[in-house]
């Protein structure tokens, strides 16, 4: 697209009236800056104190960083499942979080029956794969070719049914599946941070699962078929790929990945039938930020989100911990918009 002529529109100064007039982006940016300023003024006193704490008791940085990375890995796992379904089938799966929680309840169920929740991992993967397949055959197959809202409504409906179903089976109490692994205390420079072995174990398991999925996608016939379908479903069909089967497999694979993430969540956090929505939101934020088909991006975004949540929880207060998730999404979207506008203008 390189144009031999110099760019047509005269360069206008940043934030000058002409620049503001020329595009909506200027106003968006200004509004954004104003918003950030207002928030910072509102919270500055407390936030500064908290930053000072981080400087004095610097060991707590390690704590926040570790906790953020460990939990971020699990976010990334569930988000990768969403990226698959979104990218391959163009279904925005709103019951993502519910699948995570279902996996969690599998771990909890084993734990409640005196079986170590680690065994929940293979069981959840197999069970959720089957469950995903059933949901695909019953519902998703019928909405996949419809417009966006049909699939959104359908998956939202599934989410509600799953929440209430879990509530009927397990009750609304908060549950946790304890792994029994110890917590180590590490003392450095006069301060201490703790280190829960279960979190590290979950982190490693996450890594192993992600690796397995990557190899599967690269090497196996089905993985190749999935990638082909994602690139161009019609062409794939012409080449003899049974796309319906690919869709079913993709959707089930996503459910299985979510189930595995859920087992880990139940062991390091707590679960409740209605906690799915926050996991869904996190997945959407991560995928929106990273884009689908971009596994390193999803991993980085997942880890980054985990750390960002911990830090904002510490510095700005716990009430901003989840606001950070949506706040970051907003920033990513605005930034994308700006880049896109600029790109368009250059092309013009």
């Amino acid at each position: 697209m390189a144009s031999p002529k110099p760019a047509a529109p005269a360069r206008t100064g940043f934030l000058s009236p002409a620049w503001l007039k020329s595009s909506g982006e200027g106003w968006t940016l200004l509004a954004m800056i104003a918003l950030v300023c207002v928030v910072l003024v509102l919270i500055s006193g407390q936030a500064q104190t908290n930053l000072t704490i981080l400087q004095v008791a610097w060991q707590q940085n390690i704590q926040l960083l570790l906790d953020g990375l460990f939990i971020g890995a699990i976010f990334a796992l569930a988000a990768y499942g969403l990226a698959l379904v979104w990218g391959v089938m163009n279904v925005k799966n709103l019951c993502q979080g519910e699948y995570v929680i279902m996996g969690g309840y599998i771990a909890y169920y084993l734990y409640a029956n005196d079986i170590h929740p680690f065994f929940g991992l293979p069981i959840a993967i197999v069970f959720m794969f089957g469950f995903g397949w059933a949901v695909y055959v019953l519902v998703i197959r019928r909405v996949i070719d419809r417009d966006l809202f049909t699939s959104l409504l359908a998956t939202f409906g599934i989410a509600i049914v799953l929440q209430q179903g879990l509530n009927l089976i397990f009750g609304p109490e908060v549950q946790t599946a304890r792994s029994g692994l110890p917590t180590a205390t590490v003392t450095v420079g006069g301060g201490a941070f703790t280190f829960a072995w279960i979190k590290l174990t979950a982190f490693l398991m996450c890594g192993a699962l992600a690796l397995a999925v990557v190899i599967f996608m690269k090497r196996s016939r089905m993985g190749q078929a999935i990638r082909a379908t994602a690139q161009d479903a019609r062409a794939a069909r012409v080449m003899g790929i049974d796309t319906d089967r690919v869709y079913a497999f993709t959707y089930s694979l996503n459910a299985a990945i979510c189930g595995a993430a859920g087992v880990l969540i139940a062991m390091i956090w707590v679960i409740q039938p209605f906690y799915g929505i926050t996991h869904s939101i996190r997945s959407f934020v991560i995928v929106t930020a990273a884009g689908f088909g971009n596994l390193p991006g999803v991993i980085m975004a997942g880890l980054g989100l985990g750390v960002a949540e911990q830090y904002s929880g510490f510095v700005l207060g716990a009430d901003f911990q989840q606001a950070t998730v949506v706040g970051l999404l907003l920033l990513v979207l605005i930034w994308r918009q700006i880049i896109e506008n600029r790109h368009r203008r250059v092309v013009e």
Partner: protein
Amino acid sequence: MLKHCSPATAVAAAAIAAVIAAPASAKVEGDTIVLGSALSETGKYSTNGIHAKNGYNIAIDLINKTGGVKVGGKSYKLRVIYYDDESTPARGAQLAERLIRQDGVKYMLGPYSSGLTKAIAPVTEKYRIPMVEAEGASRSLFTKGYKYLFAVLSTSEQYLASAIQLAAEIADKAGKKRKDVKIAMAFENDPFSLDVRAGVIDDIKRLGMTVVIDDRLPRDLSDMTATLTKVRALKPDLLVVSGHSKGAATAARQIKELKIATPMIAMTHCESAKVVSKFGASVDGFLCPTQWAETLSYKGKYFGSAADFDKKFKATFSGYKTVPYQSAQAAAAVLVWKEAFERANSFDKEKVREAIASTEMTTFYGRIKFSKAGNNIAKPMVLRQIQDGNYVVVAPSKWASHKVQHPRKVQ
């Protein structure tokens, strides 16, 4: 198309007709006084909703078996029309309308939770229907000038105030200045917990202590490591947490995992979160407020002592290891209705309302006397401490059975 739908339409029409045809004078049917209540039988409050229902039912059963309610020389039985509000406020308000307008209910029992009570109170107020509730503790319910709303339980701002008082007493004993007492607070961002917080803040100000952390936990937050990391860095003398049972479970789990060594920790909903059976010895020393406990020496005319109620309840409903206070206070609400009908000696709802307002009774659940605003001002919150896996009353000292362990042993 029309032909296709006709059976369904017919059924719907029949259903609508049946609803419309329901008697509009159901307040007293023959020898039965009909009360109405929307309760959470499904949805996120279903556990506690069912506890409340069992409480209503056990009291109604007792009254019906022991002579009923005597009005105008005649004995009446009590009956309740229940609807399931699915734990959603909008549904609760709809059902209250339905109870009042279609079923003709003139006397209401409350729903479960402050949120549902907040949704239903405007409706009962509009139709001037008295409601005695037992499960909505939010103090904002009693600042709106409602005339027909009465609550037998202590309001939420009293929940953790006794813990602050206790921290002050401990500091005084140790010769520590009150302003050196550092307090960390983590409250969920919901009406109930913010009321609890308001009560805590009032007491902290009154006693001149220092707040070092004041975090608000979002509704769906299942992680509070950031807040607890701050606690570890700042080493407060007291950590207070309130966020329903999910907050208690999350806090208990992560306090253990992060090895938080705060000498005094107080939180609401320890019992309903089952922290002892879930987290074992690591929660020893936690302080938990409660509306009622079976070990208290309260005694009344209907169920006998608190312990008697406990025994009877366990014998009536299977599956209860401990009797939740939600059930006890629900039963107490029914007792208020019985006494009010008898004192009013009438079914006129205004007269009954006045009789409720002048209630002064002693029950197994504690004393009941309503302020002008409608909340019960005669019963204190009690503070229990988990000692060796058991909940024992440690404050206020009048009812205390054990001494408080301080500092708590960190496992």
